[in-house]
């Protein structure tokens, strides 16, 4: 039994969980700077979470056990997902279950319960949010899987760890299909994490909100867990996109220096992706809900192009 490996794996999971609010705070901070506002400090999300945890939970009388269980379920599933992402090192013991389809499955599971909980109380907003969430996810999932399959075809594996390892150990290659897979995954990530232009996390305007509508009835620690889970989800997507397409810097061996380099580069990459996201959110406006299928079908087309590009250009 590889004890140090397991410790590292646990450490990575803990680190991701703890870092998640910081990424949200960082994005918000950069966005405020772009818009010439003062904005909250980057670690403001920690304070918000702490405040929510201290608050009393208010729940509707009709709430079923499902409603009560969902926050814990969603949070733990997301934590599980975070444990299998290769973040700063490859070759951790969790690598054997780090399958990309498992990952998609985790997210689908979390979403399923979230939607059920949204509908549980029978309020108008919860049901509306759930229906929108499902609509969008039905559009994102094919694009996500298609771009992942493009990667899997190149690496001949669906294991995330193997994918990262492959890129790190092979000589440098430009894969045309990766450009498309990357673009598609970015669009999908934006939609999955409920960011502009699909959803706006900063508003509670009833006509437009999606994610916020589902969790409108939650309060106190339940709300804190759900918020935390969604921050963690965004972090996971960020880490995935960084490490699949630009894995350089990730530790190949479990040595202190390599891990330190891995941590440092991961931090820089995440700051970079947060910066890009903030910049794009400052430039773009939120789309009308009825036009989101256009954007997501574009994501699908790009993913399809990636796959076609792989078949046409890269298979000899």
């Amino acid at each position: 039994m590889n004890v140090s490996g397991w410790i590292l794996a646990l450490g990575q999971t803990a680190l991701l969980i703890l870092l998640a609010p910081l990424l949200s705070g960082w994005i918000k901070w950069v966005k405020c700077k772009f818009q010439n506002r003062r904005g909250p400090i980057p670690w403001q999300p920690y304070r918000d979470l702490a405040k929510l945890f201290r608050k009393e939970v208010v729940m509707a009388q009709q709430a079923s056990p499902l409603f009560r269980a969902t926050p814990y379920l969603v949070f733990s599933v997301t934590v599980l997902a975070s444990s299998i992402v290769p973040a700063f090192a490859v070759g951790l013991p969790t690598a054997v279950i780090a399958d990309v389809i498992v990952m998609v499955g985790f997210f689908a599971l979390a979403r399923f319960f979230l939607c059920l909980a949204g509908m549980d109380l029978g309020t108008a907003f919860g049901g509306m949010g759930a229906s929108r969430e499902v609509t969008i996810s039905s559009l994102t999932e094919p694009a996500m899987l298609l771009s992942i399959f493009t990667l899997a075809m190149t690496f001949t594996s669906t294991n995330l760890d193997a994918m990262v390892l492959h890129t790190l150990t092979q000589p440098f290659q430009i894969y045309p299909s990766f450009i498309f897979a990357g673009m598609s995954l970015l669009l999908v990530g934006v939609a999955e994490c409920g960011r502009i232009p699909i959803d706006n996390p900063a508003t509670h305007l009833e006509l437009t909100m999606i994610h916020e509508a589902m969790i409108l009835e939650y309060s106190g620690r339940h709300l804190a867990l759900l918020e935390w889970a969604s921050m963690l989800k965004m972090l996971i997507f960020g880490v995935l996109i960084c490490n699949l397409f630009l894995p350089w810097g990730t530790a190949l061996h479990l040595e202190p220096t390599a891990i330190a380099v891995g941590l440092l580069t991961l931090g820089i990459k995440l700051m970079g992706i947060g910066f890009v996201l903030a910049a794009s959110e400052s430039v773009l406006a939120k789309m009308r809900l009825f036009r989101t299928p256009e954007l997501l079908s574009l994501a699908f087309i790009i993913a399809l192009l990636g796959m076609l590009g792989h078949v046409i250009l890269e298979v000899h």
Partner: protein
Amino acid sequence: MNFTVLTLAEQIILTLAALMLFTSFLLLAQTRLLTLIHIFALQGALLFATTLVIAFTYGRHHLLISAALTLGLKVFFIPIQMQKLVTRLDIKREVEVVGNPSLIMFGAAALVLFSYYAVLPIRELSMLATRNTIAVSLAIVLLGMLLIISRRKAVVQVVGFMCMENGLMFAAVAATQGMPMVVEMGVALDVLVAAILFGIFFFQIRTEFGTLDVDKLNLLKEVD
């Protein structure tokens, strides 16, 4: 042969091929005229880049002239003239209604697949690593045709026509490392004259029909 044995230049060419295909898709998805023209110029720039890479990598210096022609014609002259024309005819704010955008996109993807299967037997022949680009160039040609038949604005149809030309030039450059010089010059001359004639036609159509909507061009029928 494995993808990993390709040289960097060949990888760049293949990537440029994929990007050219992508710009064709963007052209199909775009509904604003000015943006459409800009994307067309971008595609020209990609073609120019491909020609340059091939000219230097394989030492085909006559391709430099071809590259210069592409740069002059497809990146600057034609897009700039079109932009001027669109501004002069005051149609730059017009947004075109396309049929069902998703359907057209999937049709386009199907065309890419079709061109892949059409040229599949050829791929076995050539020793060039860039032979795969034939499928891409055929796809670009077919997507140009799709752009022509799916749109109603005469300007967009011309962009589609020029997009087809881009695909043809790309085939000549990437798959065969350039046609003989005299042919390339002749083709460039034809493109130039065609571009000028298209401009003349815009004005004639605009004067007689009061619009650049080719739906209005329906006076002549096969049978009465």
